[in-house]
């Protein structure tokens, strides 16, 4: 899959079958649309093209709204698009200026001139351009003039899978990572680098790697303890993870730390990936470090039970 952004060269894509959207999470519903464009492209000997906007339009239009968290970073989305078999990912920088562009102008510039779209396939709720005025009806009416076909994936075809990015976010906010995994078709995952911590875990016999997540918009599941899988240098490890302020040791800031069961090496500054498998318990304040340690031992056993099949 070729990613094209900024002024980068756009090739003459033969029979471009295009879809457009933010696709946060790239969940089952999204995949229905994505698979459809891949299949249609194959049928007409063309190429599948995803047009996506970055940053997420809501960050640009409502910058004061700090509550929106995203399921996927751009890199994660790109990887998922590639797995579905998308040929081209066009990353359109979403700015205030861009949001003022009429749907007509956007369609002419991007879909007609640059992509030479043969067919546009969109979800039932998709809108183009300023104030989201470019509806399916508008596209359909003008389809002949634009020179490409338009197809809408009907509501029931997307909703019958009962999945939405909002539902997944809610599940994660409640710590229901197993439910989120069902919706996503994969475990919820995050990437970060290992940063230096206070080493209290080491004193307790549970050395942890603290994880720094670069993107502040990335959704971190509810505070608590989780059974997780951790990818270090292309090898998956079984592990447990805690998200929270660590009240027992007087913590103030939210920290993500993970204890790998079969791994002793120092991995500072290394990129790692976490997959959340199951929520074990909420975060709580223990009366003593001894009690915390006993709980951590229990957590380890529950994690190993959950992760048995991995």
């Amino acid at each position, binding site marked *: 899959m070729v990613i094209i952004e900024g002024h*980068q*060269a756009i090739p003459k894509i033969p029979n471009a079958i295009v879809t457009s959207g933010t696709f946060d999470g790239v969940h089952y519903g999204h995949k229905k649309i994505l698979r459809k464009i891949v299949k249609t492209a194959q049928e007409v000997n063309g190429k599948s093209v995803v047009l996506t906007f970055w940053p997420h339009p809501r960050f640009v239009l409502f910058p004061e709204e700090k509550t929106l968290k995203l399921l996927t970073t751009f890199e994660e989305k790109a990887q998922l698009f590639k797995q579905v078999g998308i040929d081209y990912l066009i990353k359109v920088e979403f700015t205030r200026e861009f949001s003022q562009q009429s749907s007509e102008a956007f369609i002419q510039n991007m879909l007609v001139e640059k992509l030479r779209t043969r067919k546009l396939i969109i979800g039932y709720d998709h809108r183009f351009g300023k104030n989201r005025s470019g509806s399916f009806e508008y596209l359909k009416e003008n389809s002949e003039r634009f020179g490409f076909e338009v197809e809408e994936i009907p509501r029931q075809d997307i909703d019958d899978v009962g999945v939405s990015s909002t539902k997944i976010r809610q599940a994660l906010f409640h710590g229901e990572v197993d439910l989120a995994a069902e919706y996503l078709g994969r475990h919820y995952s995050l990437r970060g680098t290992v940063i230096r911590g206070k080493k209290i875990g080491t004193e307790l016999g549970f050395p942890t790697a603290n994880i720094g997540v670069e993107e502040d918009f990335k959704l971190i599941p509810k505070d608590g303890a989780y059974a997780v899988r951790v990818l270090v240098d292309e090898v998956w490890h079984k592990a447990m993870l805690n998200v929270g302020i660590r009240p027992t040791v007087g913590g103030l800031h939210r920290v993500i730390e993970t204890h790998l069961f079969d791994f002793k090496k120092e991995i500072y500054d290394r990129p790692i990936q976490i997959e959340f498998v199951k929520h074990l318990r909420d975060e709580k304040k223990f009366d003593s470090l001894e009690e915390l340690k006993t709980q951590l031992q229990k957590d380890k056993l529950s994690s190993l039970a959950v992760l048995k099949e991995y």
Partner: protein
Amino acid sequence: MVEPILISEMDFEIGEVFLIDKPLEWTSFDVVKKIRGRLKIKKVGHAGTLDPLATGLLIVCAGKATKNINEYQDLGKTYTGTMVLGKTTPSVDLETEFDSENPFDHITPKQVEESAAQWTGDIMQVPPIFSAIKVDGERVYKMARRKEEVKLKPRPVQVSLFKVDASSLPEVKFKIQCSKGTYIRSLVRDVGEALGCGAYMSELRRTAIGDFEVEDAFVLEDFISRLQRD
């Protein structure tokens, strides 16, 4: 009046991708060095080497786009070129001297077509001994230059189109569409060997990488002369 290309308007944070028509006798790295020098940034790279005696499309990435070089490298390629039957060179192109000469008068255009068809589809291909592949940590072309015996393993490649025009033998014009990692010189060598007379490649031009076409590429000199700071 030629339109200047302003370096100040380039965005190396996002990264730039240039389509360049590589001139004859330049190495692909020469092109990168030249552009690197003009842009005055270190991160410049190309996606897929063209031999010095080949011309055509070279995709050059600058700035952050260099991290996507692999995606461009993975794309299929389209070439046009000419092979000549009856003579061979160790490198299969004209980088090296002729080392054998064989009669070709008995060969018919149909035989050439059949031989090309034989090397179409999913095939196992032995790379040319004059190639940048490493064996025991050494580039094989260095061993080949020392006239050491080089044994290379066949690799799976896909040739989706191998069209030949053999109407003016011993010259054969061809058009090839293939997966990444396919050596056109190997195809020429193998067709020549299958015909029993040998063949060398006198001309090669890469016309497309994926859907990126050489018609949309800058002629290198033109690109360089139009690059301006402000």
